């Protein structure tokens, strides 16, 4: 029975021709003397063949009237906006230099200045944007995320893991768009599936504070020479408060 279970785990890539030669031989050997498993493989093969044969016809659905022109209109709007953005950069080099320095100073200043509101607003906007475009659904493993943040971006961060007691599930970690990708952004969901984000500004210390902005609530604190920002839903509940305390305790 163990062999049957092991074969079952590999029958799909076997049927797809995606198994390395050694494993392929093992599966074939088992199928040769196990009729139920062979039957299963045949059924998979059969369904796969029909689908692939008919794939083009399955994909050739008539489009609803107007859909194409509406999507083309979206594309034109996009191109127009991109063109405007692009043309704006065709300015004298000195002006570019001034802009760059200003942008750099602004980013740094935002991070170090007393203006919590500006910082919170920037990160909240990024939180909303990230959850719209990229949302992992299942829980992730904290040590895997830490490993990925470290190896890909060099961030040494302890990522608070999922905790049912605190009502929080870890979804993933990524590089934050804000400040040209210099910040780790860890994504969570609360018990009611509300998105929650944790950001970390490296090498910055500031006073703890709370800001409500853009329909969200942010908590800001510092620890070990870094500043953390937790983006939460605006409505505070005992559950959310418990979740926030957990993250503040765990993040480092």
């Amino acid at each position, binding site marked *: 029975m163990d062999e049957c279970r092991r074969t079952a785990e590999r*029958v*799909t890539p076997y049927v797809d021709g995606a198994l390395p030669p050694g494993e392929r031989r093992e599966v074939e050997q088992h199928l040769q003397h196990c009729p139920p498993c062979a039957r299963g493989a045949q059924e998979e093969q059969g369904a796969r063949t029909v689908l692939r044969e008919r794939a083009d016809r399955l994909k050739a659905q008539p*489009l609803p009237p107007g859909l194409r022109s509406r999507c083309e209109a979206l*594309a034109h*709007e996009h191109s127009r906006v*991109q063109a405007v953005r692009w043309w704006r950069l065709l300015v004298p080099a000195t002006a570019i230099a001034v802009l760059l320095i200003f942008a750099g100073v602004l980013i740094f200043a935002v991070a170090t200045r007393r203006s919590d509101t500006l910082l919170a607003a920037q990160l909240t906007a990024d939180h909303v944007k990230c959850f719209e475009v990229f949302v992992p659904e299942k829980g992730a493993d904290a040590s895997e995320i830490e490993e990925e943040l470290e190896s890909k971006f060099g961030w040494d961060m302890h990522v608070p893991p999922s905790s049912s007691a605190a009502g929080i599930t870890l979804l993933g970690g990524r590089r934050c768009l804000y400040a*040209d990708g210099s910040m780790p952004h860890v994504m969570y969901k609360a018990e009611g599936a509300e998105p929650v984000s944790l950001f970390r500004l490296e090498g910055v210390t500031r006073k703890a504070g709370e800001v409500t902005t853009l329909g969200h609530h942010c908590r800001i604190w510092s620890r070990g020479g870094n500043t953390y920002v937790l983006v939460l839903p605006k409505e505070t509940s005992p559950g959310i408060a418990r979740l926030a305390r957990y993250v503040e305790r765990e993040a480092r």
Partner: protein
Amino acid sequence: MVRRVRSTTGPADADAFAAEALGLLEPLFATALRLTRNRADAEDLVQDTYVKAFRFTDRFERGTNLKAWLYTILHNTWRNRRRDASRDTVEVDSDRVEQAATLADGPAALDTPERILLRDTLDADLQAALDELPAAFREAVWLRDVEEFSYAEIAGMLGVPIGTVMSRISRGRRLLFERLSAAAARPGVEIAGRR
């Protein structure tokens, strides 16, 4: 503190991106139709996908797979919609679901399953059989056997581990086979011009 400015895409890039994205409208709609199982919702889903794709074009790394990126947005958007519509989580990945979903009567003894299915399955039967599959299996089988994405790409789109992807494909295919076999074995009036 001033970092190197990310290279900007010019207007030509924007046009190329838009053209390539629009070129995927038909398969995107076909996929949306299988997900939503009704044309109006599929239309909304596809439009929303393009709205997001064009709004967040910066998030797409040029040179990577645009189709996979669009499909990921499509599936994420769909999942969010389903979650908002109903808070019930249906657990599909346990063994119990497969047993419950299997037909009560097993298929008749079929000698060459592939040949019979290929010959006898009507397009309408195939679509109906697909639509009857539990959503999780339907998505996985469609993405693999119709759209030919890799296991890893599908895992990213559905937000599940690769092992789960393979298991869903396996179960989806087998369920589909059983339904198609039952449809093909149905005694019925000879329909002129079948296929």
